[in-house]
């Protein structure tokens, strides 16, 4: 198999879907000749032309509005929003239009569209370029939320997202773009809503997704001996709660780790569901480990303590296993 980068996996997924279906096109700032500022879309403009690789003005509401309207007319837009933080400038088309149009129309409409966006923290870009806002979109009925943690998943999940008939928020982390992995060619996809058990274990369940997963793996490496079941959620909506619950029933302990702040985050939601479905199986309280609940300061010294920290994950795992803080 070929080893390709996360970025290349994204590119391949899109090109394969564009090849397969003329209705698929990409749109966003700098996505034409430049191929997107992250470079995910290189070569698409050359191959498919301007209408299918549409450079736009800096008009996020226009971009997402256009994508939604195009989906109403049967196209399958894949829009790029450069940083997730900028979704603040187009929440209305995402939340009140794209997410709701199929229901409002009495199911006359389908809205097959993907909003690819790039999220995360850690690059000294300060508070307006460091947010992980998946919880907002999980809280909005009508959207799917997908967060691949590696190149293989990026390709398989993006293909499934493009084929999906409902709006998908597809979150990529800039720190993953250069990761390399074996990724098969061809027409496979990864179904939305299926988590992956990265490795099985008996003592504790750890649930994570996206870039945070790496920090979890780092944290686990700090332990000499630990039997942790690590679950990569892959998609947050729909959520594969069954896999989580099954695991928790076995281990009795669960930690959820994500980049986002803890308050009202995805972790809190998972705690709620675990409590509802597996309370009697718990040997310790389900815990969440997330980013510090502050706007991210610029200075590296301060940013470092605001991020999801490996040491904090280690500490919480230790506590869950031993009861000692």
């Amino acid at each position: 198999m070929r080893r390709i980068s996360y970025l290349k996996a994204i590119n391949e997924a899109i090109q394969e879907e564009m090849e397969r279906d003329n209705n698929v096109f990409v749109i966003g700032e700098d996505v034409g000749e430049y191929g997107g500022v992250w470079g995910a879309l290189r070569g698409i403009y050359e191959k498919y032309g301007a209408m299918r690789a549409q450079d736009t003005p800096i008009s996020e509401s226009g971009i997402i509005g256009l994508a939604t309207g195009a989906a109403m007319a049967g196209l399958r837009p894949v829009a790029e929003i450069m940083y997730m933080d900028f979704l603040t400038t187009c929440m209305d088309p995402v939340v009140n239009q794209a997410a709701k149009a199929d229901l409002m129309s009495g199911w006359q409409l389908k809205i097959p569209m993907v909003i690819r966006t790039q999220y995360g923290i850690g690059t000294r870009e300060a508070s307006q370029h460091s947010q992980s806002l998946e919880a907002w979109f999980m809280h909005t009925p009508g959207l799917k939320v997908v967060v691949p943690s590696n190149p293989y998943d990026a390709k398989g999940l993006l293909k499934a997202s493009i084929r999906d008939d409902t709006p998908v928020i597809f979150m990529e982390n800039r720190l993953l773009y250069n990761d390399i992995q074996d990724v098969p060619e061809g027409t496979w996809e990864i179904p939305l809503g299926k988590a992956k058990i990265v490795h099985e274990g008996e003592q504790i369940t750890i649930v994570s997704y996206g870039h945070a997963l790496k920090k979890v793996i780092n944290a686990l490496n700090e332990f000499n001996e630990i039997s942790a079941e690590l679950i990569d959620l892959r998609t947050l909506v729909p959520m594969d709660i069954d896999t989580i619950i099954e695991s928790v029933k076995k281990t009795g302990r669960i930690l959820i780790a994500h980049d986002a702040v803890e308050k009202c985050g995805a972790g809190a939601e998972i705690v709620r569901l675990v409590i509802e479905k597996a309370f009697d199986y718990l040997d310790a309280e389900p815990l969440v480990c997330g980013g510090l609940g502050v706007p991210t300061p610029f200075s590296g010294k301060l940013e470092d303590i605001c991020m999801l920290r490996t040491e904090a994950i280690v500490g919480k795992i230790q506590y869950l296993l031993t009861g000692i803080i």
Partner: protein
Amino acid sequence: MLTRMQKIQMLKSMMIIREFEALIKKLYKEGDVEGAIHCYTGEEAVAVGVCNALRKDDYIFSTHRGHGHAIAKGCSIKKVFAELMGRETGLCKGMGGSMHLFDIENGLMGGNGIVGGGIPLSLGTAYASKYKGSDRVTVCFFSEGASNQGTFNESINMAALWKLPLIFVCENNLFAATTPSYKTLSHPDIAKRADGYSIPGIIADGNHVLDVYEKTCKAVNRAREGEGPTLIECKTYRVEGHCMVLKDLPQHRPKQEVEGWADKDPIDILEKELMQDEGLEKDIREQLYKEIQQEFNEAVQYAKTSPFPDINEFMKIANSRYQLCEE
């Protein structure tokens, strides 16, 4: 050129909208219709003038004040009544309601509860036409209040840039909710803004259906020819209050203004022209009125006797669409 018959049809369409709103007000008071209801009374010439310049397969995007657009675009009156009464047989199976009328078969791509929310959506169908090499045009309706939303700037620039087959129709009815437009518009003519985007900005007499029609035809031609968007501002007047529950302040409805606009009633104007130019019979309006009432009686009957949406059915769809079973 419009035939006499076509003009009479336009007269009738305007009358249907007028009577529809009157009846909806009554049904609202009687409790058969609920929710946020915004009447189109007085603005009929805009929807009718514009939609008559369109094909069935052309797209329109409507607003919270959308009954007139739906009717003018050819939606089944029965289904509109049923929708406003929240019935299973409504245009949107009772899911949308007054502010969210969708009828995809007739090119009605939805009303909108968000002021200015429909404007960027209209880019999408227009983009799709260009993408597919189809000559279907898109009309985006909005009122002067919406012209002050950010989406206006973003959308008009994008449409102009890519010469999308899109016509922005601003229904400048001089009010946004309780606020008169002189308090919200730094320039009284929305059309003026078109210059900044290198597209034509046209002012139409929004109470003169033939003027609206002709100017729209021109814009439609332009759009179908691939020459890009037009902004048409239709000057008109919101005759009723904003919605069923908001009354206007008397100081914002000066007697003279109200009377001036009453003299410019779009239905009266067309009727008069038809009498003068086409020798229209004196009692035709009465005849049409009767036809309409007849049609309405049946439609309301249909709506009232239609079932409400089935809860189990809804839950079944909702479960799979929104993964409720997770919970």
